[in-house]
């Protein structure tokens, strides 16, 4: 798996963060205040979660006046959902290396 996928995985392992992301997917763009109202954690904690999600490419933000609106970018999940393809290419490359090794073991 490439590093981008690891960032996506890591950012979604936390259940609170995952809930925030799911909410953005379901309900569309939201402010930190709106998210905090239902997240069950403090506003700074929500902001921190949003910044992790943003770094992973899962969330985008839009500034409007003093407000920042956050929205989900589910396209960042495509590699995760394409697990089969990703793992196939991982094992293909490892099998190539295994074959190299087997050829070298002959000598």
């Amino acid at each position, binding site marked *: 798996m490439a590093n981008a996928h690891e960032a996506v995985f890591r950012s979604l392992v936390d259940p609170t963060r995952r809930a925030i992301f799911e909410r953005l997917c379901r309900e569309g763009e939201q402010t930190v205040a709106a998210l905090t109202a239902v997240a069950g954690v403090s506003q700074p904690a929500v902001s921190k979660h949003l910044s992790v999600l943003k770094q992973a490419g899962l969330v985008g933000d839009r500034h409007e006046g003093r407000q920042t609106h956050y929205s989900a970018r589910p396209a960042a999940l495509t590699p995760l959902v394409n697990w089969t393809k990703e793992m196939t290419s991982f094992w293909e490359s490892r099998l190539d*290396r295994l074959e190299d090794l087997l050829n070298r073991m002959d000598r």
Partner: protein
Amino acid sequence: MSEGSAATRSVVLERELPHPPEKIWRAITRPHLIEEWLMKNDFKPEVGHRFNMTRTPKPDLEIVVDCEVLAVEPCRVLSYTWCAMDLEGVVTWTLTPTATGTHLRVEQSGFRPDQKRAYGGAHAGWKQMLAKLEQILDKMD
């Protein structure tokens, strides 16, 4: 290769190799050989042995895969769990002798259908999450 639900997804790769099963078995069961083509590890071919596979794709990022040996049939079958980032799977190697060498098959299942250990919320959450995400992505297409 099948692309089913999150609970059953798996990948299968097969190769015809011009090498005898005994030699391939060495390459997939000896730690210093495994390291050459797969990852650093402390593997032992003993059922129940727990080990790690590690790699460091970037200096500040170490990937650790937790594994446990499930099956060892010398020169025939090797199977271990493969748990990385809260996703548990099983990797199974099957070696079948042929006239010219060996038919090698590797299968990785994404999630074990018979979860022995309770991974609790994290694991169940992942399955649901992935299923939901697939729905979301389907709708976007």
